[in-house]
Structures are given as structure tokens and as C-alpha cells.
């Protein structure tokens, strides 16, 4: 009996650290759905109680059912049939059946379509829990943004056609975007969408590297305006699986082998336009970005948590030189490094979710229409502010979590030594699964590119807001370190902005993002170490023996905050000093250092 939620103290701690009642209010509004749907909550407490029960259920399914199947799924992979259909591995079919029966496949959809109407923060917690059990399952479970996109932009009729199927566990979806010549650069998409005389749309062309392309609901980005190159010629279409959609090839991958990565051929496939023409990429795909980035961050967290636990077990039981190896400082350094990095990524990602949930709410309200002028102004301002913050926080989360995942899976194998290199331990699988996380849904380099403008624009303001938190006097010396870091970051940003062109900003991007992450997470840790719980259940109350789980974890966080802030003080200075040296040799001396650049 394993439960990947209840055995994870950090997630349980953060569940109580965030004011989930606020998110419940955003999701449920006036709670009038409770009159119509008997599973809808009656008030905020009811909703938060549901959230935790849902996490408990998915924790149990992940621990008891999904995790034991992961190795078999990795070995078996998926099967491409002669008729262009795909048969998922046995274990994956069972996983999807379990998740469907548990009502988990419409996690964030509204009650009226059979969804659980949970905020992104809770969905992200569940996504990490599922990924810990099997990273490749996340590639299907974590594609629930497809339902969200339909819910946000499709017609009522389309919603009714597609959404209940997700809730019933009958449908899974695919985002059909990438093509052989349109990877990171989606503006180059070529797949044709043509309308016949009766106004019906048809798709023709090839898509590649499509995760779960064999799913039942396909959201396809296609060129509907043939006289227009670039992103504004693209529209979004929805279609089902059928004889005109064939899977031509299943990719043979390094990791996440349970997830079918498809090359697809559309041959006069009937489809429906979603939303308006020409807004496919620029609006609808972009709206998916926050969720997609956080999804990969959650997957990275799950993989890291799984592999860290194996390393910890091994380190505490493997005896060499007469003692468990984790008694050696060099191994302790690896363990503490892994554990802290995981918690950094988790805090950063949850903070991003918190803001995304607020932005989603504001966008929905604006789309519904607000009559009151002052209120409209207020919402528009909030929308702008949150868009800026999320434009920085979601790529930072994805960048940090995925890179962290690669480091942690590397270090876990290091702890296991020769055994880690063998397939006997799941660490080997985790390392293979980890590798894609910093590549897909935008490489780390693209995340940095997306985030650095945010860091240079809104970063300082965001940190100033964080400094306004009512910290107690005893953390003043830590706060002073953070203030000094923020001031120096501002100085470095000014330096970068003063350089001609944007090239130097891109060159300094990774270093600036690293500094921003350290400063933001320092505040998050510090807040976690001083704030009282917002959800006061048994976990936060003292038991018969006077033990209080929440308070113990809070105390632990103060040690972590202290360590994190003091360790990074020197790193932040080093990175910023380096940026302010203004060294451009990576660009100017490229041919000299890397070798001559061949002409294309």
C-alpha cells in the first residue's frame, strides 16, 4: 500500500502553505454549481477538502497501480499496427483505465462537463505524483490542456461533442503542432487546411513528433490562409481519430517509452475550425504555453522525486568501509543537493501555478464581459500584470525544473555507482526519461530567451513585492542578503540594457535567469519558514505526544532557507560580476574558439 501523496511531506506542507480557499473561490465563484451538480462543492472548505481527497486518491493509484507497471511499459513500448493505428502497451492501457475510472482525466474542466474543476496548482501536484510513478504516463495524463483549450475557445456545440469524453475517460488528446521543418519555429507550419464550397474544412499533410498522436481528440495547427506565410496564416482545428488519419511511424526513443510519439499523415481529414481563423498560433497555442511549461516542470519533479528516493534508500543501506555510504560527506553533499534542488523546483513551479490560476480567472472574467467600468479597468490591469509575471515565472519553472531533473537523475546514478549504471535499478530509466524534459515544449535555451525579458522587465518589481511580506525581525540578516542581491541584479540589468542590440541580453540570459530564480525561491523558502498554515487539519495540529508535522516541517524549511540564501549569496555575486564584465568573446571570438563557421 503505497501512496505518493501522503508519503510526500513537502507536497503536503505546501498544500497547507498556500491559501487554497482563495483558488477555490476563483474556480467556484458563488458555489452555485453545488445546486446543479452533486459533486460540486458548497463552499471553499468543501472544495479544499475535495482537493486533498483527490490528491489522496491519485497518490494511492500512483503508488499501488501505476508505479509497479512502469518498468514493463518501458520495456514493452507501443505497437504500430498495419492499418496505421497504434496499440498502447498493456500497462499504459491499464493506467488509463484506472485514471478514467477515478475521474481524473478531466481534472480542471468545469463541473458541467463532468470535470473536477480543480485549480492548476492542485493539478500540478497530481501531475508530479503521476510522473513519479511513471514519467511517460504524464505525456497523456498531462495533456489535459487540450480539453482546457477546447473549453476556452471552441463553440458550445464543440464543447459538448468533445469534453464529456475526457471526463468519462474515453478520450485522450494530442496537440498536433510540430512538423519536420517546424519544431521550435511553429510559424513555419505547412499542413494545409482547405474549406470546400459547403464550408467544410479538410486537413492534408504530415505532422511529426506528436505525443499521443493516436489519441481520440486531435487539436491540429494548420495553414488555412495559403497566401499568408508566418504565424498569422495558421488556424486551430479539432478532429477525431479516423481512417483518414494514419500513424506512419512511431519514434524509437531514448526515454518516456510508454508515450507514443507519432508521425502522422492527414489525408483529406474532415475537421472543425476552433475559434477564429488566423488566431491558431498567435492566440490559442500561446494560451497553452503556461500550462504546458508547468506540466513539464511537474513531470521533471516527479522523475526527480522518484530517483532521489532510490538514491536515498541505497545510500542509507549500502555499506562500504564498514558504514552506510551516506555517512560520507561527499555522498551527503550529493543527497542534500538533490533534495534541495527538488524543493527549489517545486516551490518555483507552485508559485507559477498560483499566478497562472489567478490569470486564468481574470481571463475568463474578461471573456465573459464586465460591465462595471472601474472593475473592468481593474481586471485589465490585473491581466496585464499577471501576464507579465507568468511570462517570466512559467519559463523559469520549466527551465529550472527540467535542468534540475537532469542533474538529479545524473547524481542519483552517481550515488548508486556501478549498480546505478545497470538496469536493475529504476534510476537508469529515470535518467533516460529525464533527458527529454529540457528539450520538448521549448528547450531550456528558448525558456531562457522567453524568461529573460521578464526578468529584465518585471523581475525587480516582483522581488520588491516579495520583500513587502511581513517577515519577522529574526530573519532580517537573511532579508538583507536578498535585498543586496536584488539591488545588484538591478544594476546588472541596467548594464545589460545599456549594451547595444539585444545580443548581450541573450548571452547573459541564462545567468540572469539563474540569479532571478535564486532570489525568488529564497523568498519562497523564507516565507514557508515563517508563515502559519492556511488549512488547519490534523497535519497542522499537535498529536498526543506533542508532535506537530507542519511545525516540524516549517522549522526544517527555516534551516533550508538559511542554507539556500547563504550559499547562493556568493553565487549571485559571481554571476552578476561576470555579467557586468561585459565579456562578449563567446560571440565575437566564436570562430576562433569553436572553429571556422562553415557556409550553408
Amino acid at each position, binding site marked *: *500500500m503505497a501512496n505518493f501523496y501522503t508519503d510526500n511531506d513537502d507536497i503536503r506542507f505546501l498544500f497547507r502553505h498556500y491559501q487554497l480557499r482563495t483558488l477555490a473561490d476563483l474556480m467556484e465563484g458563488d458555489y452555485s454549481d453545488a445546486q446543479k451538480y*452533486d*459533486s*460540486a*462543492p458548497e463552499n471553499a472548505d468543501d472544495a479544499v*477538502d*475535495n482537493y486533498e*481527497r*483527490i490528491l489522496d*486518491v491519485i497518490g*494511492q*493509484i500512483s503508488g499501488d*497501480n501505476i508505479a509497479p507497471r512502469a518498468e514493463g511499459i518501458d520495456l514493452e513500448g507501443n505497437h504500430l499496427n498495419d492499418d496505421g493505428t497504434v496499440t498502447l502497451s498493456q500497462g499504459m492501457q491499464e493506467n488509463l483505465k*484506472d485514471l478514467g*475510472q*477515478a*475521474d*481524473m482525466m478531466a481534472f480542471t474542466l468545469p463541473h458541467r462537463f*463532468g470535470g*473536477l474543476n480543480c485549480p492548476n496548482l492542485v493539478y500540478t501536484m497530481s501531475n508530479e505524483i503521476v510522473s513519479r510513478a511513471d514519467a511517460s504516463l504524464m505525456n497523456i495524463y498531462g495533456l489535459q490542456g487540450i480539453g482546457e483549450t477546447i473549453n476556452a475557445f471552441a463553440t458550445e456545440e464543440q464543447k459538448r461533442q468533445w469534453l464529456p469524453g475526457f471526463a468519462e475517460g474515453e478520450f485522450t488528446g494530442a496537440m498536433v503542432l510540430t512538423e519536420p521543418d517546424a519544431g521550435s519555429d511553429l510559424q513555419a507550419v505547412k499542413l494545409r487546411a482547405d474549406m470546400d464550397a459547403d464550408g467544410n474544412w479538410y486537413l492534408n499533410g504530415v505532422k511529426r513528433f506528436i505525443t499521443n498522436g493516436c489519441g481520440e481528440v486531435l487539436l491540429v495547427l494548420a495553414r488555412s490562409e495559403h497566401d499568408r506565410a508566418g504565424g498569422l496564416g495558421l488556424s486551430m482545428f479539432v478532429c477525431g481519430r479516423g481512417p483518414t488519419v494514419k500513424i506512419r511511424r512511431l519514434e524509437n526513443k531514448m526515454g518516456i517509452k510508454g508515450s507514443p510519439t507519432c508521425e502522422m499523415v492527414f489525408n483529406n481529414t474532415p475537421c472543425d475550425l476552433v475559434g477564429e481563423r488566423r488566431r491558431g498560433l498567435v492566440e490559442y497555442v500561446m494560451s497553452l504555453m503556461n500550462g504546458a511549461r508547468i506540466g513539464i516542470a511537474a513531470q521533471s519533479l516527479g522523475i526527480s522525486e522518484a530517483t532521489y528516493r532510490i538514491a536515498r534508500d541505497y545510500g542509507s543501506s549500502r555499506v562500504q568501509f564498514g558504514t552506510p555510504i551516506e555517512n560520507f560527506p561527499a555522498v551527503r553533499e550529493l543527497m542534500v543537493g538533490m533534495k534541495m534542488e527538488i524543493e527549489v523546483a517545486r516551490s518555483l513551479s507552485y508559485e507559477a501555478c498560483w499566478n497562472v490560476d489567478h490569470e486564468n480567472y481574470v481571463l475568463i472574467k474578461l471573456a465573459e464581459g464586465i460591465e462595471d467600468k472601474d472593475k473592468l479597468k481593474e481586471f485589465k490591469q490585473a491581466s496585464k500584470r499577471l501576464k507579465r509575471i507568468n511570462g517570466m515565472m512559467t519559463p523559469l519553472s520549466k527551465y529550472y525544473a527540467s535542468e534540475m531533473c537532469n542533474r538529479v537523475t545524473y547524481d542519483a546514478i552517481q550515488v548508486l555507482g556501478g549498480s546505478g549504471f545497470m538496469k536493475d535499478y529504476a534510476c537508469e530509466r529515470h535518467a533516460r526519461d529525464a533527458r527529454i524534459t529540457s528539450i520538448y515544449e521549448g528547450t531550456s535555451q528558448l525558456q531562457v530567451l522567453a524568461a529573460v525579458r521578464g526578468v529584465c522587465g518585471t523581475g525587480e518589481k516582483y522581488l520588491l513585492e516579495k520583500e513587502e511580506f511581513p517577515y519577522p525581525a529574526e530573519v532580517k540578516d537573511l532579508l538583507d542578503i536578498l535585498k543586496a542581491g536584488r539591488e545588484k541584479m538591478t544594476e546588472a540589468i541596467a548594464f545589460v540594457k545599456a549594451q547595444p542590440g539585444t545580443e548581450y541580453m541573450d548571452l547573459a540570459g541564462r545567468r540572469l535567469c539563474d540569479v532571478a530564480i535564486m532570489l525568488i525561491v529564497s523568498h519562497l523558502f523564507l516565507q514557508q519558514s515563517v508563515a502559519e498554515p492556511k488549512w488547519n487539519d490534523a497535519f497542522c495540529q499537535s498529536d498526543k505526544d506533542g508532535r506537530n508535522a507542519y511545525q516540524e516541517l516549517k522549522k526544517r524549511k527555516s534551516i533550508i532557507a538559511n542554507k539556500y540564501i547563504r550559499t547562493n549569496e556568493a553565487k549571485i555575486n559571481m554571476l552578476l560580476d561576470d555579467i557586468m564584465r561585459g565579456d562578449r568573446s563567446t560571440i565575437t571570438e566564436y570562430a576562433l574558439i569553436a572553429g571556422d563557421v562553415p557556409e550553408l
Partner: protein
Amino acid sequence: MAYNIVVLAKQVPDTKAVTGKAMNDDGTVNRSALPAIFNPEDLNALELALQIKDDNPGTKITMMTMGLPSACEVLRQGMYRGADRMILVTDRRAAASDTLATSYILSCAVKKLGKVDMVICGRQAIDGDTAQVGPQCAEKLDIPQITYVQELLDLKDQTITIKRSVGAGWEKVQCQLPVVLTVLDTANIPRPVAARKMMKFKKAHSAMELAKADKADLADALKAKGLLIEEWNLDHIEADLQWCGRDGSPTKVNRIQSVVLAASGHKKIEPTEQGLRDMIHELIEDHTIG
């Protein structure tokens, strides 16, 4: 064809979570130190019932348990997975019932339900491991029983065909409904809780639970929503009191011993065919295995 199924479930202390505090000084179980859970094989019984319901639309599953109001949790857990009705059989006069009295009381309650096609329960409960209640219920209901159910092979109209374990092999058994089935933990993997049903039925309570929480006034509102757990007492099920509780329980506990296993010394087994053979022989001799 639609069937009426009763699933008998028991709330038990989680014996897998045993800690140093699990036993009282007098050798009895310290129930407060162990989390109360749905008896694992009763979940397999419920799963079998749910599979029958999946294949036979219109089938109704009634969850029934006997115990204190706190046992309502297993009834709710049953509803979270897809059961249709909850009945708590509870009565102070049923306290200290052994398996004979328990099966008598449960059989009276099942009779009260009217026409029932199948009574399904787990093979045994992890707190007593007797495996007696299911078979005794069948005897008292005077209907056939198939124990150690591994697989439902066929169910057509009023005929059921079952594969049952006989330890070292299988037996294929067929009989007419109604029948009592006791199900093994290897028969299936119980389905997970369905979140939407959980969000609804977490609010289901029995009148005694409400009274304890000082919320007795909510009973009517819950009833209107189908969320009031039915409570049946011994009068309601027309049980003869002489067969219930302590009076109806011939089992007398003579002595409870707290056995502490302590390792004393170790023995080296040679890693040879002969060494292994000797070890197995010794284990069979002292009844550790076999």
C-alpha cells in the same frame, strides 16, 4: 439481466500498520493505535460485484456492514466506487458477537432486503482470519455458497459459473442463484475511488454519526439527497436476541498471548542442492512452511 447484489464489508484495524503500540498490556488489540480500513478482500468482493454491474445494466449493489457508526466509512468507500445503497447494521446488543452471531445478524439483515441474487464478501477479514462469516451466512440463508472465488466464468440468467481455488488447483463450479460468494484477493484488482462520486458521497452520514457530531438536524436534508445512510437495528431486522451478541456467541476466548519473536543465533546453510534440501526439510518439520 439486472441483479440484486449485497456486498458484506467489514471495517478492520490495518494490521499491516502494526507498531509497538498495537497491543494493549493485557494482550488485546489497541484499536485506537491502528488505522481503520476497508477489509482488503471485501474490496475484491465489491470489485466483483461492480464488474457484474458493468456487464449487467440495472444491477443494484447494496453495501452492508455491521459495526459501530464509525464503520459507515466503509459504506461510503463502497459508494465512491459505484455501489448504490448503504446499510449500517448497528445495535449495542450486537456487541461481542462472534462469527456465529455475526453471520446470524447479517443473514437476518439480508433477508430483510427481500429478493437478493448474490451475497458477496471477501474470503476473510484481516483482523480475525476466520473465513467463517460468509459460509455461515449462506447456511443461515439456506442458499448455496461458493467460497475461494478466483474468477467469474459465466453469469447467464439465474446460472453462475465460477472458478474457485482449492489450494493446489482450481475447481469449476456452477450453481443456481441465489448464492453466497467469498472472494480471494487474487481474483481482481479493486478499482480506484471515483473522484466525482467521492465528492458527492463524502457527505453521506448515518443518523448516529450526525447525532455524535451534533448535526442531527441535517438528517432530513441528507435523506432528500440520498445521502442518509440507513441504520438498521436488531428489532428492525427481526433478529432473535438469544442468537445475538454475547448470548449468541459460543466462542469463548481462553487466553490471549503476546508472542514476541526474538532471533537467537543464526545458522549457516550451505549453498548446495543438499544444503537447500535440508533447510526445506527442516522448515516443513517445524511447520514453518507446508
